[in-house]
């Protein structure tokens, strides 16, 4: 017998459920906290109360207070809305641009393909963080700058994946057969290209979001990203770092939140990639 049975028997059991579910749950929990926390306990992330600086948890601030007496609970919730929102916007823009340009390069070939690939490769040669920094310096408004800079970095990945997948699919006998049967480009896009690209795109989107959140936090941590007093994960870490001895839990809150969010995203991506 042969092939059919032996192959299906040897195929590894589908284990998408495991990692993907855990990752999605982690992401949902962190994002859910960001959205719901202010509704559960009313408060403001900017109100200072120096008498309570580095104080422990109480009813108005379940996670305690930072060095300026601001509620960590509310600052964390704000930070967990800000970074994912910028990341989501950047991934959406980059994904759309990457899909469009990648599809165009694969379908048209020739000089269109060469020019787009050249631009993508040139961008790839620059360190991503440096590119974001340059755009931040040019753009007014930090959030807008992050969105533009990250989009510019992230689209390359989507472009390359779309181009590679589309080239293989467009050259396949399946597409040739559809064309011989008189189906147009829209059909090829819907029935041949999209089903192949979509799973790859979801993986790239999860990785891209993780990269974006990490970049925002990293630039915040070295004090060139978001400006104080905006609550942002990296900025919160660097602000609380000098007080790690007095208030270790205060420092740990943004660290744990960042770690959980990134782990969740990478578990989602990694499991899909298999």
């Amino acid at each position, binding site marked *: 017998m042969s092939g059919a*049975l032996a192959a299906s028997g040897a195929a590894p059991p589908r284990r998408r459920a495991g990692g993907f579910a855990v990752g999605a749950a982690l992401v949902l929990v962190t994002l859910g906290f960001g959205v719901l926390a202010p509704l559960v306990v009313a408060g403001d992330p900017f109100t200072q109360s120096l008498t309570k600086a580095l104080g422990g948890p109480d009813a108005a601030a379940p996670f305690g207070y930072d060095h300026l007496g601001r509620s960590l609970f509310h600052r964390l919730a704000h930070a967990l809305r800000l970074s994912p929102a910028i990341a989501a916007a950047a991934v959406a823009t980059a994904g759309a641009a990457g899909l469009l340009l990648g599809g165009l390069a694969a379908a048209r070939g020739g000089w269109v393909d060469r020019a787009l690939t050249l631009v993508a490769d040139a961008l790839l040669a620059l360190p991503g963080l440096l590119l974001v920094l340059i755009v931040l310096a040019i753009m007014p408004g930090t959030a807008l700058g992050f969105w533009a800079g990250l989009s510019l970095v992230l689209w390359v990945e989507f472009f390359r994946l779309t181009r590679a997948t589309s080239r293989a699919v467009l050259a396949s006998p399946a597409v040739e057969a559809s064309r011989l049967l008189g189906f147009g480009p829209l059909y090829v896009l819907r029935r041949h290209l999209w089903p192949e690209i979509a799973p790859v795109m979801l993986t790239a989107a999860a990785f891209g979001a993780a990269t974006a959140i990490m970049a925002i936090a990293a630039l915040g941590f070295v004090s060139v990203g978001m400006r104080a007093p905006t609550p942002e994960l990296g900025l919160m870490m660097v602000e609380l770092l000098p007080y790690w001895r007095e208030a270790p839990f205060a420092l740990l809150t943004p660290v744990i939140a960042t770690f959980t969010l990134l782990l969740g995203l990478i578990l989602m991506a990694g499991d899909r990639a298999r």
Partner: protein
Amino acid sequence: MTLLQADDVAVFDASGRALVHPVSLRLDAGAPLVVLGETGSGKSLLAQALMGTLPPELWARGRVRIAEAEHDAAQPQGFRRLWGRAVAVLPQEPWLSLDPLMRARAQVAEAHALVRGLAPVAARRAAAADLAALGLGDEAGRRYPHELSGGMAQRVAFAAARAGGARIVVADEPTKGLDAARRDEVARLLTRALETGGGLLAITHDLALAQLLGGRLIVMREGAVVESGPLAEIFAAPQADYTQKLLDADPARWPRRARRAAGPSVVEGRRLTVSRGGRALVEGLDLTLRAGEIVGVSGPSGCGKSSLGDALLGLHAPACGAVRRIEGVARTAFQKLYQDPVSAFPRRRALGATLADVARRFGRRRAEVEALLARLDLAPALLARRPEQVSGGELQRLALLRVMLAEPRFLFADEPTSRLDPITQRGVIDLIATLAEEGCSVLLVSHDAALLDRTADWRMALGGHGTAEAAGRAAPAVALGAAG
């Protein structure tokens, strides 16, 4: 002398269903044992059970006696130490199983050193001797697998497999996807194993290979032995109906297709030159394909058979010359059947959904699709599956159904049956012939000369150097320009 004896070996799946019913067999030194059967007959599973290489979800029962030692088929780990030393396996597609980063001789020497335990120098010498005995000199031994021809790679893989001193060679579908010349070469290679008192167990659906090997034969179907005995006797006078059917499916035994009057010209090539990658494959070819006619095309791989068909379909621009298609007929009446049907359907879409798209495109009703399904002997349940979930024969018939929805006037069938077993192949070719009888013009590519001889109205052999020559029982409808 008996090299391998199996008593009541059976294979079961996890749910306890028998995939191979108890089989007993004996492999003698110097006499090949051929296991013949179609895809899904359990012949490969039987061989895996005999070697202890079944996939982990399956389990076997029975006793296997190899090299004077008794083994329990239920305990595959007991077979491990036999691999390479007592039993050598010739992989299905040897050129894929060689290490691409290692020179040919080093791969054989490695087996000598690691399996047989020779010192490095002795292993190298033994490897060189092995390769020389197979007609591969020093120069070939220094090449990397990608620099070897398919036949040479096969010989290297054979030498590496046997380097451990195994007396039993197991070959599973050794001729899959090979043309006739290469098939004879493989048969000669396999027979070499017998000369030194070795044993050969060949698993195949290739009737020609079975005949070349000779010896004893076991015919299997649906996990059970249908017939067994000396191969020559069974081939001359099969006892079981199934064996008869299997033998009749050999193209060499097919009846010739009755020749019919050809209709008007459907596609014409005038002084056609087709090239790929700047190299002219077919030069200055004149041909006319008429309604109701099957034209056979043969030639070595890479000679431009597919490119010629693609040029006639308008998928590939000819370098020179012109293609004229019959006027007043939609472009969708010019269709193609692919060698690998799995790659010809959208991978992640249910087959039924794809066929429904095509039916809608051509304004066909559901009932018409169902009638075609019945006519092509396809179960409607197949439509819920995805391309890789149905057998090659079923999928090729579904591809034919899809083509028929477009009411083809011209069909380019590019080796449509080279991956199918004989009975399925016959079914598909019969359907293509029916299509021709209904007035479709067919260009049929195959590397099986007997198949073309029985099926085609006239044949054309592409030489691989831009030449084409016509052959066949009837004079070709037009003279073939053989320039170049």
